[in-house]
């Protein structure tokens, strides 16, 4: 993983607007800056634009107006081999999981590392390590299609983390998890964050960011709500 100065932006969004046809405004005039090594929570109600914002950051969608820069690269301008190179640096845990049901759990997780041509032995070791951390070791050879939603969610998180990316984007990572498993997942994200990975978690599960000292950004109807006093928690204002 690249070591970057802590105050340098990994994600820079300037006045980005995204409109889905015919005229659904998903995001409107969003400006945002996230520095290397930060852990940010993106909150808001369903349909607030959290997923769209994550899609803009990982380059799946492009803004109709404005600019999105990730690791210093303008996503509107990058092309060719730069796109896969950038995507290899981003680990995304999708809300709809995007797993291959006819592949085993191990194979699904390994895909993220295989695309960057990692050593087979390293891949196997990393997959086992992640499965143990997420208490899924007994599902190593199970087909992803046969897993419960909670298990599938953990697999997609493991895949997002597997390649040790510079930036992890997690879309509702705890939506299908019980409190115990939520804690496991959050521990994994925290470990990654401690080792220098920038993490953006889109969630409406208040329990995971309530006690956090990390920045919380709120979206409402596609617009960024000004940061509240929850952004920086102190022992005095802690609920």
């Amino acid at each position, binding site marked *: 993983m690249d070591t970057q100065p802590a105050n340098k932006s990994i994600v820079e969004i300037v006045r980005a607007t995204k409109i889905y046809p015919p005229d659904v405004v998903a995001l409107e005039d969003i400006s945002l800056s996230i520095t290397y090594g930060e852990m940010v929570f993106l909150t808001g109600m369903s349909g607030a634009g959290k997923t769209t914002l994550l899609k803009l950051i990982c380059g799946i969608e492009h803004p109709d107006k404005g600019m999105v820069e990730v690791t210093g690269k303008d996503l509107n301008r990058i092309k060719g081999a730069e796109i*896969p190179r950038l*995507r*290899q640096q981003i680990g995304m845990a999708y809300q709809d999981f*995007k797993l*291959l049901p006819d592949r085993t759990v191990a194979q699904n997780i390994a*895909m993220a590392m*295989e*695309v960057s*041509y990692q050593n087979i032995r390293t891949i196997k070791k990393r997959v086992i390590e992640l499965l143990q951390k997420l208490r899924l070791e007994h599902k190593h050879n199970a087909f992803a299609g046969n897993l419960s939603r909670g298990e599938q969610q953990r697999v997609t998180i493991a895949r997002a983390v597997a390649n040790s990316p510079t930036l992890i984007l997690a879309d509702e990572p705890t939506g299908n998890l019980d409190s115990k498993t939520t804690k496991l997942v959050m521990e994994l994200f925290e470990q990654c964050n401690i080792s220098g990975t920038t993490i953006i978690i889109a969630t409406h599960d208040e329990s995971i960011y309530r006690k956090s000292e990390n920045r919380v950004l709120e979206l409402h109807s596609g617009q960024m709500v000004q940061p509240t006093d929850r952004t920086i928690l102190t022992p005095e204002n802690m609920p």
Partner: protein
Amino acid sequence: MKFFSTILVQTNRNLQKTWPTQFMTLLTVSLSVLIFSFFFLIYTNMIKAGERLGDDLRLTIYLEEEPVMEMQSQLVRRITNFSPVEEIRFTSRQDAYNRLATQLGDNVDVLDDLDPSFLPPSIEVYPKKNLSNLAQIKRFSEYLATLPGAVKVQYGQEWVERFNYFTKLLQIIVILSGSLLILTTAFMVAYTIRLAVVARQAELEILRLLGATNGYIRTPFLIEGFLQGLLGSTLGLLALFFLFRWIQLRFTGPGILQLIEFTFFSPTIIGIIIAASITLCTGGSFSSMRKFMRI
């Protein structure tokens, strides 16, 4: 090294997933190669047979009078000016009589009451032994008939023409089966790859999102095309070889096949057929990817 091992793992996975379609395509490629190679083998053997039969081919020009030495050299010059030949042999009336007497053997007495000069003098022309000359033999004979003193030109017109037509027919069949090979292999492989791309659309989408490069996504499909070409042509040629051996063993008795010494393809020709098949299949795979894979 990591690139190749990863790509090979991915290719193996793809093949396992789509093996029924891949198997059918493999059979089609093999069959196309077998059909083409079968006719091509017959064609090449017929050309060889033509060359061998050409050894015995000669054109006999019957003359009114025996040409004097000066005339003989003039005739040789005119013949060789039209077409290069192996040999020109002059036969006098006496030589022709002696040859006939020899051929009659014990029955030579039938010539007793005949004048030894009753046979006409002639020129025997042995053309160059290749098929193009064989095809032009008619034109050559027509020219020889116009030589001064020539009365009649004789050669095995009938079999030469038949042989010529037969080789032309074979040539057409080889071209047609070659076209069939090109169409079937390229289209079938392209279609199989297209099916594989469609069947694995979800997987390819995820791979793209995970940051798979064009090389990572496309190379396994190209390898699949390469393997189809390599295995398909090898199987087709192996089947032809066994068919060839079977015919050789089965038809060892007297017959038309005894006149022609059948041989299998040389290693060079085998290499060319396999290389062409690989090129076609990999090309089909590549064109299919360009059309149906959005990266």
